């Protein structure tokens, strides 16, 4: 570790550290513009100039020369050096405050300001602008240039429906371009021209077509890139920034909800190095608009005669209670509860408590629609990735195996974080039935045959055993297992249609690696539900590789929604013979639907007798309901979500509830009280206290504990005070902030436990042999239950299309863009007509359709269709 002296303070830093980073711990502030700690240095702005000297070496003795006081003699470099590109070395001396440095900073700022419009009063960055702040700290107090002589350029250039570019304000730091290239991996931006004419441009069609474009707004050190959504709705110092958690997917990115006048004006990332670092995807940034949609249901309603009529809460609750009360006790069995897994832990916990303790029914589920694949929770409970695992920091000695997942569209920020781990030295293996974005970054990537997932995993197990890399110390029945596993690697490879060598390499790499993590996604969960052999094989791979029970080891299920994990933890699954979602929709007499919309996905769905719907909108299901309870949006109450990595995170209330809407947990409590329960939860925090007592894995997870590091951002910054938080965020500082708490898995809390391994023969499913297979995928920006109420998201939703492999397209004589009719087996048989997209993302024999777009919304989802056969029957060229 080199020892360096910065402003007279001596510090040891790891080799390879840049001067700007080394200066942070000693408290010397080096201003930067183009440097960002999350990206490779570029040295474009020269703001970070510092004076650097090296000890003079005696060529004879190779020892530093010392002066008469015994101090080493310093050879100062003739010119100032950029702190963001200079790596520290032993004995280096750095001065950051000399008059020379101060003069350099002043000159750089003066230079930048010669062509800067200085329209801070109308600039959305004003108040959290590094250029403003640096100018105040280090800049010249006045100008030597005439205002008229300033350089002018285009203002308000729309780069995309989301982002506005002001060319005059751009200081050409290249951060936005580098973010898109290095971090997002979607090189949508470029720098054109030269000198002061250098311009940020986009060459995409549609323009700036990236799922992560919003991040460039945050990291742009000036107001050149601003959000068109937030544009001119508030000054940043007028916002109240409440700490929250994004509700749009299972990553659970930490956000600030910036509110003004009881409206969310913008969503910005809140740093959490274990979850989202400082990034967000565009969906998380923009979907919040649904919270103040005029379409929200704001009063309780009951069906009087044939119409739903607004009534008071008292009437509505009474109506339901009167209906339920006479049947309490005996016919609880015919009541069922379906709850969406975008709801908070507190809601789901009380919901199942209402059913199990008051109504006496175990007919509870959350696995419906997009979430109906949610599987693998037993694996997670036992072998979930050890506490302290940080997916963004995986490096040397870690192999991450990604199975049947497409995080680019389903867990976008996780994709960002995983795509850098190979650069950090980790091994990333991506296996799926089709090509995904993340595969570009993989050390090994492979495409298996959909339906042959079990063979694929068994091949890995076999390869591991063959190489003698398996561990049996924590396994019961390891020897029997390897005897029962009557398949060779080659046989598995043939079934899965991958090369035997690939399978062998992956299996051996994973087993031999010091740490191993398995992440499986929705497409894999579908396979798990169809064939128990898949889960058994994964179980064996985990146990026999010994990759569980510690940090950087174990399994992560990539669930679809913000609280899918929490729903499983809270017991939102049928137990003791309760009905699962698929059954309750037809068999239940009384259905309580909370935050779910079965009628949207299945138009044939009928009101089963008596139906209570608790939602934000008049969903298709709510229109058929007998009672509608208006629920408040997530931003209108507090609570906790458990993300896909089992991290329980607190989100604060940011808005007043709309109309008479109430938090879901409060509605459930009122209903329970009407039915005679003595519940007295005063807040969501009270419910969480009970969860912490009753659910062992959630022990001690009270709101107070989860709120650590999740505080409200001060709305008014001390002008020119110590680097204020938004500026630090823009500069990517505040490194190391982590909040939330991960629950420990069984294998971690019971270090001596042994686990059974059993071989299950894979079923030769139809998909593994049949002709064409329909893969159901997702688009990130969609017409989902909430997204459809966010206009700005709707401007970016892609048109539905069917992806076809070029070989198939040739064989079927389908041109790119032609309309294609696909008929697939389902009950009843169905057909879809969509334009074809021939872009090589699917292998031959597979066609892929995203089922969350206009026209594909009620495409059957996975387990509903036993055999999905597709014939491309008719092609009409455009």
């Amino acid at each position, binding site marked *: 570790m080199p020892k360096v002296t910065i402003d007279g303070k001596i510090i040891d830093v790891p080799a390879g550290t840049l001067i700007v980073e080394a200066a942070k711990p000693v408290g010397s502030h080096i201003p930067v513009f183009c440097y960002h700690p999350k990206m490779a240095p570029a040295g474009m702005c020269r703001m970070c100039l510092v004076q650097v000297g090296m000890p003079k070496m005696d060529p004879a003795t190779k020892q530093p020369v010392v002066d008469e006081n015994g101090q080493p003699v310093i050879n100062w470099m003739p010119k100032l050096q950029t702190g963001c590109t200079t790596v520290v070395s032993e004995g280096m001396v750095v001065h950051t405050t000399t008059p020379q440095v101060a003069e350099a900073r002043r000159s750089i700022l003066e230079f930048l300001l010669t062509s800067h*419009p200085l*329209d801070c*009063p*109308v600039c959305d960055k004003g108040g959290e602008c590094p250029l403003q702040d640096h100018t105040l700290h280090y800049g010249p107090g006045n*100008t030597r240039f*005439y*205002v008229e002589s300033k350089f002018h350029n285009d203002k308000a250039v729309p780069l995309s429906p989301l982002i506005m570019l002001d060319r005059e304000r751009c200081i050409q730091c290249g951060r936005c371009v580098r973010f898109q290239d290095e971090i997002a991996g979607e090189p949508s931006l470029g720098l054109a021209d030269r000198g002061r004419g250098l311009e940020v441009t986009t060459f995409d069609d549609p323009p700036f077509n990236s799922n992560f474009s919003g991040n460039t707004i945050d990291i742009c050190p000036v107001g050149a890139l601003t959000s068109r959504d937030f544009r*001119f*709705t508030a000054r940043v110092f*007028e916002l109240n920034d409440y700490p929250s958690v994004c509700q749009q997917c299972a990553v659970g990115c930490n956000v600030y909800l910036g509110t003004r006048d009881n409206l969310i004006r913008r969503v910005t990332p809140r740093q959490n190095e274990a979850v989202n670092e400082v990034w967000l995807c565009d969906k998380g940034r923009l979907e919040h608009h649904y919270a103040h949609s005029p379409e929200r249901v704001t009063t309780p309603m009951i069906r009087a005669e044939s119409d739903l009529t607004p009534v008071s809460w008292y009437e509505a609750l009474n109506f339901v209670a009167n209906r339920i009360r006479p049947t309490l006790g005996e016919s609880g069995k015919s009541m069922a509860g379906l709850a969406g897994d975008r709801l908070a832990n507190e809601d789901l916990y009380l919901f199942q408590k209402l059913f199990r303790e008051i109504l006496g029914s175990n007919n509870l589920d959350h696995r419906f629609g997009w979430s109906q694949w949610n599987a693998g929770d037993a694996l997670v409970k036992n072998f979930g990735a050890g506490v302290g695992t940080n997916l963004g920091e995986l490096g040397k000695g870690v192999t991450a195996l990604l199975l049947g997942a497409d995080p680019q569209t389903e867990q976008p920020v996780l994709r960002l974080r995983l795509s850098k781990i190979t650069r950090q030295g980790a091994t990333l293996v991506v296996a799926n039935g089709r090509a995904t974005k993340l595969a570009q970054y993989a050390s090994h990537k492979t495409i298996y045959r959909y339906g042959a997932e079990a063979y694929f995993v068994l091949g890995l197990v076999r390869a591991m055993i063959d190489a003698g890399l398996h561990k049996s110390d924590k396994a019961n029945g390891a020897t029997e297992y390897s005897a029962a596993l009557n398949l060779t690697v080659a046989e598995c490879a043939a079934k899965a249609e991958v090369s035997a060598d690939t399978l062998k390499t992956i299996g051996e790499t994973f087993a031999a690696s010091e740490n191993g993590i398995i992440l499986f996604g929705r497409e894999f969960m579908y396979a798990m539900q169809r064939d128990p052999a898949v889960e058994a094989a994964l179980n064996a791979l985990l146990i026999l590789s010994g990759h569980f029970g510690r940090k950087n080891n174990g399994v992560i299920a990539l669930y679809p929604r913000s609280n899918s994990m929490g729903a499983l933890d809270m017991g939102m699954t049928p137990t003791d013979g309760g009905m699962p979602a698929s059954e309750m929709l037809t068999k239940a007499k009384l259905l309580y639907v909370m935050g779910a919309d079965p009628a949207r996905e299945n138009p044939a769905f009928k009101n089963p007798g008596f139906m209570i719907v608790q939602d934000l909108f008049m969903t298709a299901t709510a229109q058929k309901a007998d009672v509608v309870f208006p629920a408040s949006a997530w931003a209108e109450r507090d609570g906790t979500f458990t993300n896909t990595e089992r991290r329980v995170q607190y989100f604060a209330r940011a808005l007043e509830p709309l109309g008479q809407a109430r938090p879901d947990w409060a509605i459930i409590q009122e209903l329970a009280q009407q039915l005679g329960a003595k519940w007295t939860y005063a807040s969501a925090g009270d419910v969480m206290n009970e969860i912490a007592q009753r659910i062992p894995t959630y022990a001690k997870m009270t709101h107070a504990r989860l709120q650590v590091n999740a505080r409200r951002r001060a709305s008014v910054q001390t002008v020119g005070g110590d680097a204020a938080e938004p500026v630090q965020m823009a500069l990517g500082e505040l490194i190391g902030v982590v909040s939330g708490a991960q629950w420990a898995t069984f294998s971690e809390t019971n270090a001596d436990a042994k686990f059974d391994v059993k071989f299950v023969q894979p079923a030769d499913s139809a998909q593994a042999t049949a002709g064409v297979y329909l893969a159901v995928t997702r688009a990130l920006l969609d017409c989902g239950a909430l997204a459809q109420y966010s206009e700005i998201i709707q401007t970016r939703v892609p048109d539905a299309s069917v992806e076809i492999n070029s070989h198939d397209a040739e064989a079927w004589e389908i041109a790119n863009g032609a309309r294609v009719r696909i008929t697939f087996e389902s009950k009843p048989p169905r057909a879809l007509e969509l334009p074809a997209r021939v872009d090589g993302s699917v292998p031959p024999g597979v066609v892929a359709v995203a089922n969350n777009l206009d026209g594909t919304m009620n495409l059957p989802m996975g387990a509903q269709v036993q055999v999905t056969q597709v014939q491309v029957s008719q092609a009409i060229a455009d």
Partner: protein
Amino acid sequence: MFEGLRALVEGLLTTGKEMVSKPVTYQYPEIKKPVPPRFRGRHELKRHANGLEKCIGCSLCAAACPADAIYVLPAANSDQERYSPGERYAARYEINLLRCIFCGFCEEACPTGAIVLEHDYELAYYDRRSAIITKTQLLVAPPQGEQGTPRDMPDPGNLYAAIPPIKGGVEPVNIVEMAQTQV
């Protein structure tokens, strides 16, 4: 006895003097006392000589206000519907005169000289709500012969270039000259 007499005479003298001197009271409201030029009364939102609003909706006045009396809701200008020079204008501008302490900080914070505390001090209301004055009440009429806002007009330029020479008024601080004198 002399003591008493003296007091009486003195008293009557004072009375007599006051009877002939000019009274200091005004017959308000018939007669209004003129206020000093820098008196800080009710605010006005000023216009440029070409009729555009000076206010660009920047909220700096609201940020400076120690009493939190100002509310600004900005919006974007367009060439077809232009309120002020540049990209942004105040769609709503409200001052709660019951909160305002007439310190003039807003005036000082304003980068365009839009908000000025003027000489109206007759600020009494029958209810609290009407003490919140809106942009329509605050905005002065356009100069004679000029159109009001919004109007169809291309962007006259940035903040400073947008200030046209003022006919017969005091020139705004010319920052070009300021820069020249400092060189």
